């Protein structure tokens, strides 16, 4: 549940708009060549080393069941106490304040860690709960 106005970094991944809490968005970087990992699902594009740390690249569009053909050029690095991940972005919109309590988009799966829809100047977006999403990925989904 997202409540109270909080700064979020809004970005596009294909036609969908997504938002991560600004305090969790560490950096936006160009997507470097990736290393594939064994057992990766289709949403896990690979990993890359960044400042001495290995970061997994998550194809957000595919993870939420809306794969896109558009190539990803950038990733949003999201950091939570348990670790970090890089989420694919086709365009970075900017910082917006999301108002009010937002329901989960689903009761299970990856969408259970997205809330919304939230209204931002660029349209409607889904607010990502990064801690829950990382836990979901760590369960091997």
């Amino acid at each position, binding site marked *: 549940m997202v409540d109270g106005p909080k700064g979020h970094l809004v970005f596009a991944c294909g036609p969908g708009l997504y938002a991560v809490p600004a305090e969790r968005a560490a950096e936006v970087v160009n997507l470097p060549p990736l*290393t*594939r*990992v*064994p*057992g*990766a699902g289709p949403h*896990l594009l690979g*990993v*890359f*080393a960044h400042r*001495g*740390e*290995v*970061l*997994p690249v*998550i194809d957000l569009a595919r993870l939420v069941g809306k794969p896109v053909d558009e190539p990803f050029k950038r990733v949003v690095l999201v950091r939570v106490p*348990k*670790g*970090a*991940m890089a989420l694919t972005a086709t365009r970075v919109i900017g910082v917006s304040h999301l108002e009010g309590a937002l329901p989960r988009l689903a009761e299970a799966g990856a969408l259970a860690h997205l809330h919304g829809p939230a209204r931002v100047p660029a349209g409607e977006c889904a607010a990502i709960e990064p801690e829950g999403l*990382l836990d979901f*990925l*760590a*369960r*091997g989904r």
Partner: protein
Amino acid sequence: MSAPVVDGVVLCRVGGARLALSCHEVEHVAELPQGPIELAVAFGEPAPAEGRALCAAGRFLRVESVDVLATPGLAVLPVPAALSGLAGGALTGFVELAGQLWPLASARGLVEWLTAGPRA
């Protein structure tokens, strides 16, 4: 606490993917026997027509090509939290060689996971 290291790695390639195994876990490299376990499956690749076989954990694992890097004390980067359950937990870290990351796996864990049949 000192950073984890691995003393020598066997570098395996299959399709466009690569994987490192600790030298201590690989018993020997051999010609292909009948019915090897396919490393390609771990990466969703078709099995190569040719290749070599690594004997590890009592089983033969087919790879497309293999090199041995005997360098001791290679630094191992930890597995990101989001990948902790991957490959049945066989992924143990990453090594960086000549600017390239190599996933490092437990040979035993990998063989067990592949034998059990990875989830699609």
